[in-house]
């Protein structure tokens, strides 16, 4: 009897980590299957799949940035505004006639500096919670974006500037048709996610980010400079928002005042659906990707089926609650003692 218990226990111990890591992918696969059954002709077509990736391209950057912040048990509400401000700076610099390689760098630098501003505010000004600092900068950055652009859209960028968001990689040499191209933004998502996966899982700094989320006192007592790591995390989050701005500039060919409005909430939602814990220290890059995909597929699938966007809101909200409830149940099993 005891042996049997032990067997079950060790089976649990073996299975739970896998479930924790890959459970969210099951949900993603399930969703793809359901959508495929509902829309067999369209959903898995080349055109639609690349469409989904193009649609999630800039959100996936914001979500990845917010994810790192959430791992440290923080929050960044300003990513949408950072993206908008970076986009506006890009637009103004482009309109001023700067060469493309400078135009391309501006949103990345602007985003990084905005994130640095958040990080310095949270650590040096000793804000009681990142929520407050980034709520403030949510307004500041968007206001600044409107100030420099005069609150009007600025359109028309060169092809080099638009490459990351709008570029296509021709696959005709593989014997595919001309319409079956690979969006550059998809390749970009893959590269950025792989780099950050390595950073978070294989580097000292990445491990310390998780440690700070698990127990900031432990990190501090281990000689880790917690403030420095937090500043790095918020700066990287801003930098990723800057990449998002560059992608968006390519996709829309325009800097516009409403860019990224409420996208910080989408980014947070993707992290939560993907299994990141608000208490910090938990979640994976793969999970965030799955979270972004789930939201993208849901929107795309409902659009294909002509469901009103009001229902999309209701459904995404329900999925957030459901995903977290599954997480709660999972933790009950995981910590049984």
């Amino acid at each position, binding site marked *: 009897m005891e042996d049997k218990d032990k067997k079950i226990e060790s089976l649990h*111990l073996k299975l739970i980590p896998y479930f924790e890591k890959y459970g969210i992918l099951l949900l993603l696969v399930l969703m793809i299957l359901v959508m495929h059954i509902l829309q067999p002709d369209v959903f898995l077509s080349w055109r639609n799949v690349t469409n989904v990736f193009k649609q999630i391209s800039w959100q996936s950057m914001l979500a990845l940035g917010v994810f790192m912040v959430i791992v440290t048990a923080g929050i960044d509400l300003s990513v949408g505004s950072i993206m908008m401000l970076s986009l506006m700076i890009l637009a103004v610099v482009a309109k001023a006639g700067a060469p493309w390689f400078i135009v391309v760098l501006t949103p990345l630098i602007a985003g990084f500096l905005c994130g640095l501003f958040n990080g310095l505010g949270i650590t040096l000004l000793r804000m009681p919670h990142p929520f407050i600092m980034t709520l403030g900068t949510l307004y500041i950055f968007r206001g600044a974006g409107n100030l420099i652009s005069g609150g009007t859209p600025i359109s028309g960028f060169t092809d080099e500037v638009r490459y990351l968001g709008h570029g296509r990689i021709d696959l005709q040499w593989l014997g595919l048709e001309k319409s079956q191209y690979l969006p550059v933004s998809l390749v970009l998502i893959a590269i950025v996610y792989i780099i950050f996966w*390595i950073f978070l899982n*294989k*580097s*000292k700094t990445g*491990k*310390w980010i*998780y*440690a700070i*989320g*698990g*127990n900031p*006192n*432990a*990190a*501090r*007592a*281990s*000689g*880790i*400079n917690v403030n420095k790591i937090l500043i790095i995390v918020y700066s990287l989050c801003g930098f990723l928002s800057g990449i998002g701005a560059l992608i968006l500039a390519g996709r829309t060919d325009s800097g516009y005042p409403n860019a990224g409005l409420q996208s910080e909430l989408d980014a947070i939602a993707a992290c939560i659906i993907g299994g990141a814990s608000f208490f910090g*220290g*938990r979640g994976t890059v793969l999970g965030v990707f799955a979270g972004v995909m789930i939201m993208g597929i849901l929107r795309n699938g409902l659009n294909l089926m002509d469901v009103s966007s009001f229902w999309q809101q209701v459904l995404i909200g329900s999925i957030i609650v459901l995903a977290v409830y599954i997480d709660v149940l999972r933790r009950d099993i995981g*910590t049984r003692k």
Partner: protein
Amino acid sequence: MSSTSNPLLEAKGITKYFGTITALENVNLKVHAGECLGVVGDNGAGKSTLMKVLSGLYKPSAGSLFFQGKEEILESPRDSQNLGLEMVYQDLALAGNLPIGENIFLGREPTKNLGFLKLLDFNKIKELTNAHLDKLKINVKSADQKVEELSGGQRQAVAIARSTAFNAKVVIMDEPTAALAIKEVGKVLDLINSLKKTGVGVIVISHRMDDIFTVCDRVMALFQGTNFAESSLSNTSRDEVIGWIMGKK
């Protein structure tokens, strides 16, 4: 060991103010290699503050620290760790979301070079962790187990393992047996005894007379932030030490 040899760690005239509050005033402390010093005192007597000064977490307002006879100024816990001074905190200072091995090496992870990248060497972490846990006779299912899945005694053992993984010369333990089941207390005390045998100087803060009288060689009492009494263990008794804690000689 004999008290005539030079102390490993000596604190002289340590004073610490928090604003207008005087937490420590002119406190002296020393510990020798292979010796266990017990520090007792009532709540608020300044024990934990003193330990945090020793570990570099707080900077003293006045006073100096000598390590192996040389004066040292500690700017952060990293400085004290580099000297071989380790602290086991009362709240354990472990990250529950990380595995045992990564906790033990937190902040000092072994890395390997992959081209220009410095990546964590997980195999080495696991290998070193298993060897170290074996050496201390600490039993856990696996070095990959997350700390949050461990019992209180196992966590304490991991915290102690963590403090001794880098050839520590002095280990400071803040209430190492608080919040432990009776069965687990004995294991932790055995661990302290085996540390002493390897020549480590141990400082134990404890409320429990049983702990003090099982592992310590010398005991000192703090009272309202000052040195109140000190004695080798053979020259005192439980009742006397309890009296010191309450401020009676």
